[in-house]
């Protein structure tokens, strides 16, 4: 199956530190097996709805094989390889993502002034291109305003924004 994976700007995994073999000349990168020295559970990847939780500098399509398991916020497979980079996810898109988060949560501070500092944080992170943090603070702000449903709704809105902006297909979990 094809899923998605965020990597750092140096194309290493944020948690494993593993340098993924990259696609080259139109061919996918080499297959990577799940090994305990990197992660005991397997190769991690995202459905579109998972993406807002794991934002990093580069986004890739990844092919997974074997028994693909689902966790609350990710897929886990015994084997995977990078297929192609999603070039539309770049510094501009990261700032736009933060701005979209800001646009959604700003009205919350109008109704509840105690949320204004959190909205200001979202603005700061959006303007500095820290998309993952902007998304996190926006979701927390929505949760403070509307409880768990607010958090979930904001995260879903973020995933749908990414799907629209990057040309991905969103599916409910």
């Amino acid at each position, binding site marked *: 199956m094809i899923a998605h994976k965020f990597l750092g700007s140096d194309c290493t995994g*944020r*948690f494993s*530190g593993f340098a993924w073999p990259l696609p080259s000349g139109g061919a996918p990168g080499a297959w990577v097996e799940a090994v*305990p020295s990197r*992660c*005991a*559970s397997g190769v991690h990847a995202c459905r579109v709805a998972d993406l807002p*939780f*794991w*934002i*990093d500098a580069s986004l890739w399509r990844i092919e997974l094989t074997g028994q693909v398991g689902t*966790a*609350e*916020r*990710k897929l886990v497979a015994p084997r995977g390889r990078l297929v192609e980079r999603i070039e539309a996810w770049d510094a501009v898109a990261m700032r736009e993502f933060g701005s979209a988060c800001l646009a959604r949560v700003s009205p919350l501070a109008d109704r509840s002034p105690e949320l204004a500092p959190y909205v200001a944080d979202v603005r700061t992170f959006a303007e500095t291109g820290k998309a*993952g*943090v902007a998304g*996190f*603070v926006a979701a*927390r702000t929505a*949760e*403070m305003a509307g409880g*768990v449903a607010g*958090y979930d709704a904001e995260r879903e809105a973020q995933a749908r924004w990414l799907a629209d902006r990057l040309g991905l297909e969103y599916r409910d979990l």
Partner: protein
Amino acid sequence: MRIEEDLSCAELVELVTEYFEGGLPDRDRERFEEHIVFCSGCENYLDQMRTTIDVVGSLTEDDLAPAVADELLAAFRGWKAGQ
């Protein structure tokens, strides 16, 4: 991850060994990793721990000079006595 499920930075530091050894339950592992996404300080800490393990993770007792081993043992005993 809801507000009440958030890990603090101090809690993350206490869990880092279990994280590297694959000993965390799936949900706790996910909480740990979600914290790393938004906390640059803990991301740096994780990188430092990973580098430390890469550099010294293969050392055994035989790799230590006797004087160094004695010094470390004294330090550990002193630390434990001070608790």
